[in-house]
């Protein structure tokens, strides 16, 4: 039997867009792209992105790892919820539009047709997600001063959105119904909520925590440690496991699609071909294997304060090596240096430190430089050179810290906190790990020096105890060990500080030059202060 000639009269309609394409799939995809419902929700996605992800990222410091945490955090959560809901809605299209009979008579297998619809939905969702990532990364690129955009979080996010589409689509295909889409969206949101809560619990636990929940840590909002990705590489271990897990889910669900019934066909229907059944079963098996492997790998994950989560089987030794960097410095007499990743904070650090450094300039042991070091190691040069070490861990005061943007960091709280740390460090000597804290004499001198530069009384233990009144005896104080041991009250320390502050600048310098060593060693008491 040959084909029927269908053109008894010349065709008038020849749209220009009917250009021959090499592949039918490409042409079918083009139609699905054009008519995807995702296009209609793009404005909603954009609004949610702005409110949820963009503003969150903008409130974080301009370091790549921290900003990138948003794209696998809140950004991924709301994208995957919407992706799952829309995919479920799209999957029920054949039932809603009653095209099941018509489509069942076409040569293309249902699985391939559905995969095209799923691909178009996932394409738009991933494209929208990547647009969001691009916005965050462009914003970060304009503000960041060091490093480059991490790509593994992007891979995790893309796979997460695609897997969410597959979850929604499979639910919509296998369980078509009017309420399938909203139920799937709510279920995915609840799953994220529960997962993030579980991961937060893991993050808050001690180092003995289990690793399987590390699969969810990307969604917990931000890295535990701001230095991760600055001083050390972020190992891609968990990202690899996450991509494997979600890739497995995606593959497995694609394998389930051929099990779907033709909408509108009741009772006995034609079975799928053997080859398709075998391919589908293989897809499901591979998907389950990939996800199970990822889960097992995550079970061996351990937390490292410097690099975050590590999975031994996937760990590259190079990831444990520090990232080389050159400090950015400012100032002539007293240099303030900062890690290049935090260069935007240099002004906020330098201004208060310069003021404090000027007050003690020329004294023996007075630092000539302030350097940023990673917060998780002891200062490398503590006690041997006149370098003041500070870190992102130390410099957090009030509402401001290195977790804030540089503009927010430059507050009175921040500046006074920086000065307090600096002066206390100088008066007490470079801190030892087991230091009992400043003596009352050291506290009085520090208070006096800080007062001269306009900083308030530091938050030493006996000053911050609400039940301790000036003049009360130290015996009644339950605060810091040093105060208790020395028998000095807050009032006594304040009085001594006032006396020291009232000295002329030259007299203070002269006294400190002569007695700093004794002050630091604890041999000078409160009563011996001038």
């Amino acid at each position, binding site marked *: *039997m*040959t*084909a*029927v*000639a*269908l*053109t*008894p*009269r010349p*065709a*008038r*309609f*020849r*749209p220009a867009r*009917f*250009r*021959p*394409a*090499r*592949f*039918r799939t490409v*042409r*079918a995809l083009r*139609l699905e792209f*054009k*008519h995807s419902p995702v296009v209609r929700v793009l404005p909603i996605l954009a609004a949610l992105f702005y409110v949820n992800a963009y503003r969150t990222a903008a409130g974080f410091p301009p370091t790549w790892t921290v900003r990138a945490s948003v794209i696998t955090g809140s950004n991924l959560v709301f994208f995957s919820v919407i992706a799952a809901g829309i995919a479920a809605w799209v999957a029920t*299209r*054949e039932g809603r*539009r*009653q*095209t*099941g*009979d*018509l*489509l*069942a*008579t*076409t*040569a*293309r*297998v249902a699985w391939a*047709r559905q995969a095209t619809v799923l691909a178009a939905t996932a394409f738009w969702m991933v494209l929208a997600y990547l647009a969001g990532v691009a916005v965050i990364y462009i914003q970060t690129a304009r503000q960041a001063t060091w490093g480059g955009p991490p790509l593994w979080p992007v891979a995790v996010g893309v796979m997460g959105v695609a897997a969410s589409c597959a979850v929604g689509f499979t639910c919509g295909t296998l369980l078509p119904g009017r309420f399938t889409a909203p139920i799937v969206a709510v279920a995915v949101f609840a799953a994220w909520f529960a997962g993030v809560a579980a991961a937060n619990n893991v993050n808050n636990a001690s180092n003995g925590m289990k690793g399987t929940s590390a699969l969810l840590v990307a969604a917990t909002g931000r890295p535990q440690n701001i230095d991760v990705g600055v001083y050390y590489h972020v190992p891609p271990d968990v990202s690899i496991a996450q991509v494997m897990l979600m890739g497995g889910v995606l593959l497995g669900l694609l394998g389930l699609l051929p099990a779907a019934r*033709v909408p509108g*066909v*009741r*009772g*006995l*229907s*034609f*079975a*799928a*071909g*053997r*080859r*398709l059944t075998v391919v589908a079963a293989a897809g499901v098996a591979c998907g389950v294997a990939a996800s199970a492997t990822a889960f097992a790998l995550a079970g061996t994950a351990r937390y490292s304060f410097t690099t975050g989560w590590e999975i031994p089987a996937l760990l590259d030794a190079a990831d444990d090596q520090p990232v080389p960097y050159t400090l950015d410095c400012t100032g002539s007499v007293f240099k303030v240096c900062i890690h290049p990743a935090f260069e935007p904070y240099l002004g906020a650090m330098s201004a208060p430190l310069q003021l404090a450094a000027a007050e003690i300039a020329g004294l023996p042991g007075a630092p000539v430089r302030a350097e940023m070091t990673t917060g998780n190691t002891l200062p490398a040069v503590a006690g041997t050179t006149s370098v003041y070490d500070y870190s992102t861990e130390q410099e957090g005061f009030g509402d401001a810290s290195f977790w804030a943007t540089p503009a927010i960091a430059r507050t009175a709280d921040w500046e006074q906190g920086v000065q307090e740390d600096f002066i206390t460090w100088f008066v007490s000597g470079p801190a030892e790990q087991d230091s009992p804290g400043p003596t009352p004499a050291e506290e009085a001198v520090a208070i006096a020096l800080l007062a001269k530069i306009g900083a308030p009384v530091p938050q030493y233990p006996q000053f911050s105890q609400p039940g301790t009144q000036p003049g009360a005896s130290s015996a009644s104080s339950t605060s810091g060990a040093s105060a208790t041991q020395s028998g000095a009250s807050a009032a006594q320390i304040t009085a001594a500080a006032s006396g020291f502050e009232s000295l002329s600048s030259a007299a203070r310098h002269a006294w400190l030059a002569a007695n700093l060593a004794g002050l630091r060693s604890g041999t000078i008491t409160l009563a011996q202060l001038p």
Partner: protein
Amino acid sequence: MNIELTDVTRTFGRNKAVDGVSLAVGPGVFGLLGPNGAGKTSLLRMLATVLPPSSGTVRLLDKDPGRPAARTQIRRRLGYLPQNLGYYPSFTVAEFVEYFALLKEMPAHQVPKAVAAAVEQVDLGPRAKARLRTLSGGMLRRVGIAQAIVNGPDLLLLDEPTAGLDPEQRVAFRTLIRDLGQRATVVVSTHLVEDVGTACSEVALMAEGKVVFRGTPDELTAQGEGHEIGDSPLERGYGAVLAASRKQVAA
């Protein structure tokens, strides 16, 4: 023979929709008549490879649709217009027809011309870029016919194709299926006997899931001699055969 049915039945639960139908149909326009619930649509859905038979054998275009590979080959050469045409409202006429041309696995380079030709054949050329949601019921029916004929099918199955068409379009449609029936097998399921009388070379009448008459429209007309119910000779023949069938069942 493009259609060979041997003792085909199809049941839905306890309901036997098609009951032991045997048919052999070659090229030409074949009319399938019958009252509502006679089993026409179920039979057509089996011919369209939507449903497998509960029992009996079906061969279409000399192939067994029970085998996946053969079923795919049949579907490439099949056109089907269901009774209730589902459609995607946001698609344009041309896009909808193109979509089905692609799903019927037409060679990609033939699709543009075939789509344009099919759209012209149902006289929707000027509305080719109109979205389906903007079309009337009759126009949608013509879109359904266009998607059915876009691949130049060797087996064309049309379930109530003229429902909703205006008289002028109905005449044009009859001309169209007569043209198509020159080489292909066109099965038209309808309860409008005038469609059958003017377009079909052969007709079968179904009642209670069985084929109770098979012959030419003239032979069906002849059955109506002496029968008074019906506006036209063909309708009287149709009524006479149905009445005889009911009497036989009652007996």
